[in-house]
């Protein structure tokens, strides 16, 4: 499995994402935002950070990059795409995921370890498919604009379709996200975005390896 990790001006978590992809058992390489060629890449990570300085809105400029044009084609072909934090914002701006990320409810940047509940999603099951869903994952979150929002009818549809991939565990919603949504998929299930950072939770040294599960589940899309 070969992962490609996008790198925009202002990205800051791409190195950790590379490390996480390798820790999950694959090869990984950076893809510069001007690079239109994803040749040979099986799965794409759109990493966290502040692409293009978050100018206008988080993710608003990055969505027009050459690399994102390639990512849209990659997603349309049913191949896995993972957006983390700013990457989630970029995927929403690009229309590859539903909804939007607004300023945190308390208008403050949040940075803390929290717990997620992994929702059932058959299409994303791969290694670890036999493990119970509704597992609690301990991962960090760090963002100022992470409040997931979508119209009520969209939220209803996401829940009915099983597109809510992760929710904040009770008492762990750090930003006021609607219905405690922390991560969603597209309708096909091959594009996943979440605000917390699984790439920072792949080594016991940092207190949790639960983030590996997110990367491993994306691998399941290819199987």
């Amino acid at each position, binding site marked *: 499995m070969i992962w490609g990790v996008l790198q925009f001006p202002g990205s800051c978590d791409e190195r950790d994402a590379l490390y996480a992809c390798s820790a999950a058992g694959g090869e990984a390489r950076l893809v510069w935002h001007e690079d239109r060629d994803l040749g040979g890449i099986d799965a794409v990570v759109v990493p966290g950070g502040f692409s293009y300085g978050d100018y*206008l*809105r988080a993710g*608003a400029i990055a969505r027009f990059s050459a690399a994102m044009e390639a990512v849209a084609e990659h997603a349309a072909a049913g191949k896995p795409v993972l957006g983390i934090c700013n990457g989630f914002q970029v995927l929403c701006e690009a229309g590859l995921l539903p909804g939007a990320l*607004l300023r945190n409810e308390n208008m403050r940047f949040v940075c803390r370890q929290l717990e997620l509940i992994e929702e059932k999603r058959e299409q994303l099951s791969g290694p670890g498919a036999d493990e119970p869903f509704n597992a609690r994952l301990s991962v960090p979150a760090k963002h100022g604009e992470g409040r997931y929002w979508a119209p009520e009818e969209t939220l209803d549809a996401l829940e009915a379709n099983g597109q809510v991939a992760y929710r904040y565990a009770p008492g762990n919603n750090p930003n006021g996200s609607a219905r405690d949504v922390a991560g969603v998929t597209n309708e096909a299930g091959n594009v996943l975005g979440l605000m917390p950072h699984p790439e920072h939770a792949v080594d016991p040294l940092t207190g949790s390896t639960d983030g590996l599960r997110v990367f491993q589940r994306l691998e399941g899309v290819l199987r």
Partner: protein
Amino acid sequence: MVELEADDPERLAELCEKLLANPLIEDYEIQSL
């Protein structure tokens, strides 16, 4: 508020829809000066 000089004012609405605003969460108004 975003101020800009537009070569083609007729495309301002398109510019707002595609870049300057996220219509899902934002309204916008165009004022020509």
